[in-house]
C-alpha cells in the first residue's frame, strides 16, 4: 500500500502520526483515505475548489506530482506545507 507522509504542522488531526498506510491508487485518493480515518486532515491539503492550497505541494517518491497522479504499492506520498518560522 502507498504511504502518506504527514508533515509536522498537519499532525493535529492524525494525533501525531507521521506515516499512514492507505489503500488508494492516486494521490487524491490517498489524502481522502487519510481523511476517512482522521477527519480534519483533508481541508489542510485541499481548498474548497478541490485543488491543493497554494501553500501546499505534493510529492510522490520525491517528485512533485498533481493530485491525479497514480501511485502504487510502497510509493511515498509526501505533503509539504510552506510553513517554517516567521
Amino acid at each position: 500500500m502507498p504511504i502518506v507522509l504527514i508533515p509536522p504542522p498537519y499532525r493535529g488531526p492524525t494525533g501525531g502520526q507521521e506515516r499512514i498506510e492507505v489503500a488508494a491508487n492516486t494521490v487524491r485518493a490517498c489524502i481522502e483515505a487519510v481523511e476517512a480515518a482522521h477527519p480534519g486532515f483533508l481541508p489542510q491539503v485541499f481548498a474548497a475548489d478541490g485543488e491543493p492550497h497554494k501553500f501546499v505541494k505534493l510529492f510522490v517518491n520525491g517528485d512533485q506530482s498533481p493530485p491525479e497522479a497514480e501511485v502504487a504499492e510502497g510509493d511515498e506520498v509526501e505533503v509539504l506545507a510552506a510553513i517554517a518560522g516567521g
Partner: protein
Amino acid sequence: MFDDRLIRVDMTNLTATAEPYPEAWKLLGGRALSARILLEECDPQCDPLGPDNILVMAPGVMSGTAAPTSGRISIGGKSPLTGGIKEANAGGNPGQDLMKLGYRAVVVKGQPADANKRYALEVRKDSLEVVEADDTKGMWNYALIEHLATKYAETASFISIGPAGEMKLSGASVACTDADQARRPARHAARGGLGAVMGSKGLKFVMIDPEKTPVRRPDDAKPFFAHTKAYTKGFQDSPKANMFKFGTSSIVPVANMLNTFPYKNRTEGQSPDVATLEGARIVESFETRGGGMHNCMTGCVVQCSNIVHDADGNYKTSALEFETLTLLGANCGIASWEDVADLDRLCDEIGLDTIETGAAIAIFMDSGEMEFGDAEGAKRILHEIAEGTELGKAIGNGAVSIGKRQKHARVPVAKGQALPAWDPRPLKATGVTYCSSPMGGDHTAGLIVNPGMPPEQFAQASQESQLINAACDSSGFCQFLQPTMPEIAEFYSVLYGEAVTREQVADIGWQCLLDEWKFNEGAGFTAADDVLPACITDEGIGPDHSLKFDVAADIVAQAKAERFPEREELWTTKATG
C-alpha cells in the same frame, strides 16, 4: 590561520582598543560567544541600563565567508525587558564586514558622564575610534543612514538606534543596514530591548568600513569553496527551497488555519481578515508598484526578504514579515497589509521591535481605550513613542508596561517579553520553549510547528529545537537556511581545516544554553518564572475555545533539567524560527 581580534569599547573613557581573540573560542560566535562574554564579565544583578551592563555585538563563526546565507550578527546583553540575558540577531552586512576585518566581537562597557551626549564607534581597517555624534541626536533610522551615507565611504555598513533606543525604551531595537546599494536600516535585532542598552551607553551608531577587503577564507581554500558550491547548489536545486521564495508573509494562511494567527490580543487564533493580510497581496503589489524579493545580506541564497512599495511606486518598507503582519495586524484587529506596512516602517524608523510594540498596542486596545482595528490610531501611538509622551513611553516599554498602566490583566508574555505569533496553545511544544528558554517569549529560541505532538515528546523536542537554534545562531547561518548540526559541523571543518564533529556543534549549543540559564539564575530567575500567564493557560482559542496551554510544570522542567540522550532526530532537526 586567522588573525582574529576582539574590540573593547569603554564608553566611560570613550576609548576603543583591539586585543587578540582567544584561540580557545574559535568555534564560538554569535549567540554562544555573547553568552560566554556576558557570563564571564557582566554582573547578572546589574542595572540593564547602567554602566555595568555589557553590550556585545558578535557575528557568527561563518560570517564574512562565502558560505551561503551566513552573515548574521548577534546583539547581546542583559535585557531591560526581561531582566535576564538576551540575544537578538539580524541580517544585513555589518556582521560580515566586521568579520572580513577579523573582528569577532565588539564588547561595549561603561557609560558617558553626560547622558545627553551622543557618540559613534568607527571601525576601519587600521583604526578604531569613538567619536562625538551629537549631530545625529534624535534622528530616525532612515534619515540617520542617509546622513551617514554622505559622510562615510560607500563600502561602509552601519549598526544604529532610533529615538526609542536613545530614550532607553524596553521595546527598542538595534538596526543593521542591508545589502542593497541604499544601505537601508531595515534589518533589526529587535527583541528584548537591546536598543535601549545601546542608547544607555550613548552609542548612536557603529560604522564599519572594510573597504575592498575580500571574504574570509582558510589557507587551504579549495575544500572550503568546493563544499560551499556543492551545498549552495543542493539548496537551490531542491524543489522544497522554492516553497519559501516569497518570504515569511506567505505563511499567513496556513498559520491562520492552524489557529496560530492571533486576533485581537490573542482572544482568537484566527483572523477574519486573513485574505487582506496574507503575503499573496504583497506579491500581487510587485506587479503594479514594483518592489519584490531580495537578499538582505550579501551571499544569501534564501532571499526571503521583500521590498514593499506604496501606491505611487515608491519604496515603503522592508521586510514585511509574518510576525509583523500578525502582531501589528491581526492581533490589533487591523485588516490591511498596507496599514501594517506603514506601521512596520514607523517601527524601523523609530527603532522598535514590531512584535513587542504590536502586542503592547493590542493590550491598549483590549483595555478599551482604543478600538481594535484603528490603524490611524496605532500610527499616532508610534509617533507618540518617538515624541516621548507618557503614553508613548508606556507602550514603547512593551506589553507588561502598558498592561500595568491600563491595569489590564490580559498580557500575553513569557519572562516579561511579548509572545510572538506562534501561539503556545495549538503549538504546546513551542510553549515549552517559551517557558524554559533563557530568552522568554521568543520563537527563534526553539519553534516546533506540530500541533499533533504527543505530550510525552514536548520536553525533548523543545530541548532539541533550542539546541539546534542556539548552534545556528552562533554560526552566523540564518535560521531560514534551515541548517542541521551535521551541516554546520561540515562548514566548520572546511573553514578550519580540521575535523569538527556534529557532537561538538551540539555541545556548543548546549553550553550556550547552560551559560544563559546560569546568568538568569544569577539575575534571580527561578522555576516560578518558567510559566505562561493566565490568559494563555485559562483562556482557550480554536474550536470551542478548547485550545489552552495546559502543559505540566514538570514537562517544562525536563526541557532544561539535563540534556536528553542523543537520538537520530537531533541530527536531522533543522534550525527554524
